[in-house]
């Protein structure tokens, strides 16, 4: 999987496309806190964001390994997949659990770029990582559901047409298992009136559009329910492994970018009459960061292989995300240290990527929760919280 011909072709094509969006492009988007509209359009036009959509719905029907190569290359080029990666893994819920009618209606338009499905509404301010406790409700009223509640950390709402929303349709005290009674809806953001849905952006350290959402009697047509009512938690779990694999790939891409920049700079920058890369204090940390990225990369492809062959991959997907996020963060630090003062100046891009890659140590799942998962579900130790 690491070096298939198809993977190589995708890599090289995406790299070419990304090459037309130089550092200055991303720097300007970051500076203006803008959305990389032009880049996302180009990526969509080339069909890359539809990689995982089956051919019958207008996509290219590739596997997660190939999809992950696309996002890796975006980050490796100095860009940031954060603006558009969600489309890939959110779409899976629709694909696997949506009705044929829903799929025919939405998937081809998502594939063509006519519709953007970039937002995923799960997390709430008071429930944090304990998803089953979420308080947003959707109550059936005739041919509509009426949604009330609040969500937080909902990314790309301002640049998405559709939002995949998880809400409780049966109260917690009326279900047998606390993961029952949650349902998934496809919310058309273009149709939601401002009084029903308020979007409040949250300012953050990187140019990552994220928002709080407030639902006040938002009406969602009943036909927008995905799958069966009450089974939504299971539907979104499927997508989580995909998300972790893709984010691991982005981190790997970031990691290679940092190592490339750091080692190139270390070769060129001369201090005390010799390239600083000749100093072991500079060279060894770069080399060590590279080794960790390589290892994370193997885990990412391992997880992708299991995913694509339909085997359980929860442990591998989580480990890939943990290893890759740690490795890219290590590489980011090493790059800053190698560049010295220049690492902080926006014009060298190191500082921008440094901010961007940091996010993945926390999102979409924190290191501690991954360690809990491994400790409990792989090594069989007792639940620790």
């Amino acid at each position, binding site marked *: 999987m690491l070096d298939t011909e198809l993977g190589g072709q995708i890599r090289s094509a995406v790299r070419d496309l990304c090459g037309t969006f130089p550092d200055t492009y991303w720097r300007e988007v970051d500076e203006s806190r803008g959305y990389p509209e032009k880049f996302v359009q180009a990526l969509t036009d080339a069909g890359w964001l539809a990689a995982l959509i089956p051919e019958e719905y207008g996509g290219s029907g590739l596997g997660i390994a190939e999809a992950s190569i696309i996002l890796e290359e975006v980050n490796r080029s100095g860009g940031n997949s954060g603006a558009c990666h969600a489309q890939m893994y959110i779409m899976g819920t629709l694909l696997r659990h949506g009705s044929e009618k829903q799929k025919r209606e939405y998937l081809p338009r998502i594939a063509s770029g006519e519709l953007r499905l970039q937002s995923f509404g799960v997390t709430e301010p008071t429930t944090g990582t304990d998803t089953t406790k979420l308080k947003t409700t959707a109550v059936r009223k005739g041919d509509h559901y009426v949604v009330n509640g609040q969500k937080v950390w909902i990314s790309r709402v301002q640049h998405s047409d559709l939002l995949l929303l998880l809400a409780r349709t049966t109260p917690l005290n009326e279900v047998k298992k606390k993961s029952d009674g949650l349902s998934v809806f496809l919310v058309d953001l273009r149709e939601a009136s401002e009084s029903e849905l308020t979007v409040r952006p949250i300012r953050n350290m990187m140019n990552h559009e994220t928002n709080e959402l407030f639902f006040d009697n938002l009406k969602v047509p009943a036909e927008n329910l995905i799958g069966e009512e009450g089974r939504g938690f299971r539907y979104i779990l499927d997508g989580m492994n995909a998300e972790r694999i893709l984010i691991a790939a982005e981190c790997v891409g970031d990691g290679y970018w940092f190592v490339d920049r750091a080692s190139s700079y270390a070769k060129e920058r001369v201090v005390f009459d010799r390239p600083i890369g000749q100093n072991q204090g500079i060279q060894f940390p770069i080399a060590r960061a590279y080794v960790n990225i390589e290892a994370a990369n193997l885990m990412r492809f391992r997880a992708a292989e299991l995913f694509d062959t339909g085997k359980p991959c929860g442990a591998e997907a989580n480990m890939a995300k943990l290893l890759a996020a740690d490795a890219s963060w290590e590489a980011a630090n090493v790059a800053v240290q190698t560049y010295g003062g220049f690492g*902080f100046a926006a014009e060298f891009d190191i500082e921008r990527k440094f901010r961007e890659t940091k996010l993945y140590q926390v999102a979409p799942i924190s290191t501690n929760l991954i360690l809990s998962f491994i400790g409990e579900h792989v090594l069989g130790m007792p639940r620790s919280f």
Partner: protein
Amino acid sequence: MDHYRSPWMNDELRLLQEAVRQFYAEEFVPHYERWIEQGMVDREAWNKAGEMGILCASIPEEYGGAGGTFAHEAVIARELSRAGITGFSNGVHSGILAHYILVYGTEEQRRKWLPKMATGEMVGAIAMTEPGAGTDLGGISMTARLENGNYRLNGSKTFITNGHHADLICVVAKTDPALGHKGISLIMVETGNLDGFSRGLPLKKLGMKAADTTELFFDDVLVPASNLLGDKKGEGFAQLLQQLPRERMYIAVTAVAVMERALELTVEYVKERKAFGKHLIDFQNTRFKLAECKTEAKIARIFVDHCIERVLDGTLDTATAAMAKWWTTQKQCEIVDECMQHFGGYGFMLEYPIAHMYADSRVQKIYGGSNEIMKELIARSL
């Protein structure tokens, strides 16, 4: 931190601490967000600080200073960090430049510049780094040629702290390019109505957004020969080196104050915030990680206090100062990083001070001599 008090603190310093704390809270904190937006502190912050008496705190009273010691400087710097403010670079102004003038300057130079620096009438900067020369001063290309009783300066400088507001700049330049390190001198430049001198826009950077950091350009700038700091050419390199151990302590003092503040904010947060029905502080991982942070913050504090006592009794050596600089800044970054992790996604939100601390901390491992250079200095003592 608990009941621990720095052994060098006394009643006078405690009063100073109280006063400075109040001053920052009233005069700086309300403007801080705006300073971040505009990419620099207000010019008048310097004047207010001068009125308050916190500029040139360790400069003798006869030159307009407060006649204090490094302990006074430490209190002033520590409280600034505790107030959550970065970017008001008094360390460069009072801690470094004023001491250059005090130690190396002629009596005339001292009387000319120090009183104005003490009131904030003049803001000071030191122009050392160039695009092609940071750590290796031998590589600077800025020249200052003596011609008819003037120095003619040509070249450019970058990453200059206080660069935009600076009225008085100590420029590191080659007065005898052929002599290498021995041809370097410090030339004082008063920027008012100065032909050929210009400043770049504030540099965009990862953190320290309120710090006024710019490039400076010197194009046939003429200053009187009497602006050579001291009375002998070619001493610049030695002059810069001599003060370094003391200067590094400013960074270490700040590092410790930031650690303590990060820990304080985080402990508060984890005691409030719940997950899975428990307060975050009830998770063992949270407890252990923060216990580790608290341990290292306390150890850093005690070590830095030891070093401050050594500054005060004049026995701080190069290697120990280098230890303080690299270790406290390393721990600052580690602790802030660990603390931020406990905030989850909120840690990235700029309304949480921890996000600013994170972005502001990283540069501490780089400036003031990178931590790699510190290790080299320590290694020489092995």
